[in-house]
C-alpha cells in the first residue's frame, strides 16, 4: 500500500485549496469589459489611436512570451528575435504564395514552432548565461542565413504582397483586431499553461532543475513546451509587425533590440507575474509616446528608468503592487485554507 492510497476522508473533507487570490472575480468582470471596449475601438476613434495601439499589443505579446520563457521557465534568452524574424519572413513568403497576409500570421506561428524544434536541441545544451549568449548567436545565424535568400529580398528586405486589394480603413481595423487577438491569445496561453499541472512543474524547474527531475518532472519536456510556445508567440508577433509595417528589413527585424525591449518591459513590470509584462508594456509604451519627440534624450531617460527600476524595484511594479494589495488578476498559485492554522 502506498501513501497515496492512504488519504483519509477526514483530511480530504477538511481541505480547501483555492486557486484564486483576492478580488479575482471582480477583476475578471473588469477585464472582460476592457476587452469589449478595446474590440469596439475602431468604430469609436480614428485610426491614429488604433494604429499606435497595434504597437502596444505587439509589445504585450512579445513581453508575455519572454516572461513565460524567463520568468516561469528560467530560460533567459537574448535571442527571441530569431522567431520574430522567422515569423515576419514567413508572412512575407506565405503572402508571396498567395496566402492572405492575415491568415499568414497564425501560419507564421506554426513555422516558428517547426524551426524551434531543432533549434531547441542545440539551445538546450546550454545553461544559464551560456544559454543567453547562445540564443543571441543563434538569432544572428538565422539573420545571416535569411539575407542569403534572394527570393525574400536578401540583405535589402522585402515588401508585403497581397495587401493592395484591401480598403485602407478596413485594413487598419483588421490589423488592429488581429493584433488585439494576438495579445489576448498570448496572455490566455500563459495563463492556461501556468494554471495547469505543467505550470507548477515549470516553476519547479526554474527554481531547482536537479531536484525537479528527481520529483518526477520531465525537465526537458517542460522546457521544450515553453520554448515552443514562446517561439510561436514571438513568431506571430513578428508576422504582426510585418502585416502592420507592410515590409520587412532583416537587420531591423532580427535586431537584438527586441530582446532588450522584452527584458526592459518584463523587468519593469515584474518578472514571474502574468500581469508583469502587461503593466510593463503599457508603461514602456507610454514613455515611448510621451517622450518620442525629444530625440535621443528620450532614450537616455528610458535607459535611466530601466536602471532605476532594476536597482530599487527588483520585483517590478507589479511585485510592488502585489505586496501592497495582494491583488492578482491571473492567480496561478495555490492557497490552502480552512486549516485553522
Amino acid at each position: 500500500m502506498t501513501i497515496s492510497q492512504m488519504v483519509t476522508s477526514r483530511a480530504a473533507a477538511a481541505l480547501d485549496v483555492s486557486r484564486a487570490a483576492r478580488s479575482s472575480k471582480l477583476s475578471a468582470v473588469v477585464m472582460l469589459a476592457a476587452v469589449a471596449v478595446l474590440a469596439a475601438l475602431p468604430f469609436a476613434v480614428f485610426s491614429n489611436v488604433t494604429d499606435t495601439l497595434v504597437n502596444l499589443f505587439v509589445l504585450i505579446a512579445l513581453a508575455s512570451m519572454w516572461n513565460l520563457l524567463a520568468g516561469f521557465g528560467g530560460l533567459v534568452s537574448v535571442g527571441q528575435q530569431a522567431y520574430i524574424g522567422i515569423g515576419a519572413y514567413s508572412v512575407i513568403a506565405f503572402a508571396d504564395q498567395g496566402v492572405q497576409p492575415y491568415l499568414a500570421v497564425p501560419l507564421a506561428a506554426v513555422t516558428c514552432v517547426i524551426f524551434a524544434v531543432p533549434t531547441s536541441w542545440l539551445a538546450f545544451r546550454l545553461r544559464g548565461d551560456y544559454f543567453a549568449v547562445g540564443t543571441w548567436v543563434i538569432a544572428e545565424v538565422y539573420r545571416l542565413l535569411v539575407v542569403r535568400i534572394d527570393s525574400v529580398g536578401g540583405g535589402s528586405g522585402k515588401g508585403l504582397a497581397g495587401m493592395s486589394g484591401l480598403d485602407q480603413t478596413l485594413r487598419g481595423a483588421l490589423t488592429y483586431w488581429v493584433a488585439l487577438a494576438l495579445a489576448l491569445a498570448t496572455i490566455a496561453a500563459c495563463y492556461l499553461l501556468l494554471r495547469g499541472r505543467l505550470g507548477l512543474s515549470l516553476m519547479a524547474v526554474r527554481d531547482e532543475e536537479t531536484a525537479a527531475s528527481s520529483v518526477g518532472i520531465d525537465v526537458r519536456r517542460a522546457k521544450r513546451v515553453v520554448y515552443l510556445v514562446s517561439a510561436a508567440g514571438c513568431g506571430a508577433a513578428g508576422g504582426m509587425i510585418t502585416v502592420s509595417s507592410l515590409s520587412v528589413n532583416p537587420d531591423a527585424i532580427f535586431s537584438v533590440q527586441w530582446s532588450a525591449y522584452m527584458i526592459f518591459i518584463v523587468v519593469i513590470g515584474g518578472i514571474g507575474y502574468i500581469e508583469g509584462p502587461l503593466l510593463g508594456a503599457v508603461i514602456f509604451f507610454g514613455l515611448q509616446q510621451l517622450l518620442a519627440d525629444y530625440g535621443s534624450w528620450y532614450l537616455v531617460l528610458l535607459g535611466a528608468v530601466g536602471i532605476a527600476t532594476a536597482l530599487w524595484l527588483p520585483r517590478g511594479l507589479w511585485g510592488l503592487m502585489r505586496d501592497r494589495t495582494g491583488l492578482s488578476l491571473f492567480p496561478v498559485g495555490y492557497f490552502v485554507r480552512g486549516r485553522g492554522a
Partner: protein
Amino acid sequence: GGLKGTGGSSSDVLKIGYVSPQTGPLAGFATADNFVVKQIQEAMRSGFTAGGKKRTIEIIIKDTQSNPNRATEVTRQLINSDKVDLIVGSSTPDTTNPVADQCEANGIPNVTTIAPWEAWFHGRNGKPGEGFKYTTLFFFGMKEFADCFFPMWERMDVSNKNVAALWPNDTDANAFRQGLGPMMEKAGYSPIDGGAYQNGATDFSAQIAKFKESGAELFTCTPIPPDFQTFWKQAQQQGFKPKLATVAKVMLFPSEAEALGALTDNIATDFWWSPAHPYKSILDGKSAQQLADDFAAETGKQWTQALGSVYSLFEIAIQAFKEAGDPKDRDEVAARLRGMKLSCMSGDLDFTAGPEPGIAIQHPVGGQWRKGEKFPWDVVIVDNTPNKAVPVGGDLRPTNG
C-alpha cells in the same frame, strides 16, 4: 457607425511631413535638414495660392534614427496622427523605401530622394512601365554612376582594366552589383567583386588580398560610411593603394572626409549638387552658391550635397500643391507629382521622362576631395562629362599619387 478610418483635416494649412535619418549612422545625410526647413518656411512665410485659396504650409519633421522600422513607424504617425497632406523623405533606401511603402499603402502623395532609383523601384516590387500611384523619386541610377565614373577611369593611366569593387549585401550595394557590374563589363572593365559581406565588418583582409592579387588599380565601392573608413585604413596598411578610388554612398560629406584624415586626399566621388552647379530656387530664385553660403553663415558648417536635394523636395511638394486644383485631394496631388516637370535647386527634373514613371533623373559629375582653405577638405569638380553645365574646377589627380 462604421469604421472611423484616418479622418482628415480641412483647414487651409497644407501639412508636409519630412522623414530623414537625423540620428544614427546615416545622420550625415541630415545635417542640413533644420536649415533647409527654416529656409522654406522663410520663403513661404506669406503663403501662396492653391486651389483658389490662400494657403500656408506647416512642416513636421520626423527622425528615423537610421532605422527602417522606425521610418515606418514615424511615417504612420505622420499619416495617422498628424494627418499630413504630403510626405517627403530623403537619404538611402533604408529611409526612402519604408516611407514610400507606407505612403503608397495609405494613399499619401510622396516624393523622396538620395537613393539609387533601382533600389527604390525594384526593392519595392515596382511593376515596370507602370510604377506607383502615390510615390515618386528624383535621383539617379547605375547608368548615371557609370556615366560619371567611367570617364574618370578612362583618364587614368592604368596597366589593366580590373576594377576592385567593394559591395556589401544591402539594398544599395546589391543594386550596384546587379546594375553597375554588367555595365562595367560592357565598357571593357572587369569588376573584381570582393564579395557580399555583411555591414559592420571589422576586417577586410580577405577582400584586400583579393584586390591585390588581381592587380587592380581602379577601385569603386558602395559601403556604409563606417565600413569604408575601416576598409580604407586597412587597405593602406596591407598595401592596397589603387591609383584612383571612385566611391559611391560614402565621402559625400565633409565630416567623413575629416574623419579619414590624410587618407582622404584625392578620393573621387559623384556630385549631384554643389555650390558650383548653376541651379536656382523655384521659390525665391536663390542660387546654389547663395544657399551654400547662407548655410555656412548660419551654421558655421560646410555645405553638403544633401542641402540641394532636401531643398528640392520641398520645392517639388509646393509646386504640386500649386498645380493641383484641390491641394487637399491626395489623388490629384499625387497625379501632379507623377507628371511634374520643373527647374529647381536640383536642376531640371522631369518625372515623366525617367526610366520608369514617377522617377526624375539627375546627372552627377565627378569631384575629388582636396585640402581646403576655409575648411579642412574641399571638393573640386574634376570631370563634367555627364553634365557640361557644371564648370570644372581642377585637374583629375591619382588618389595615391
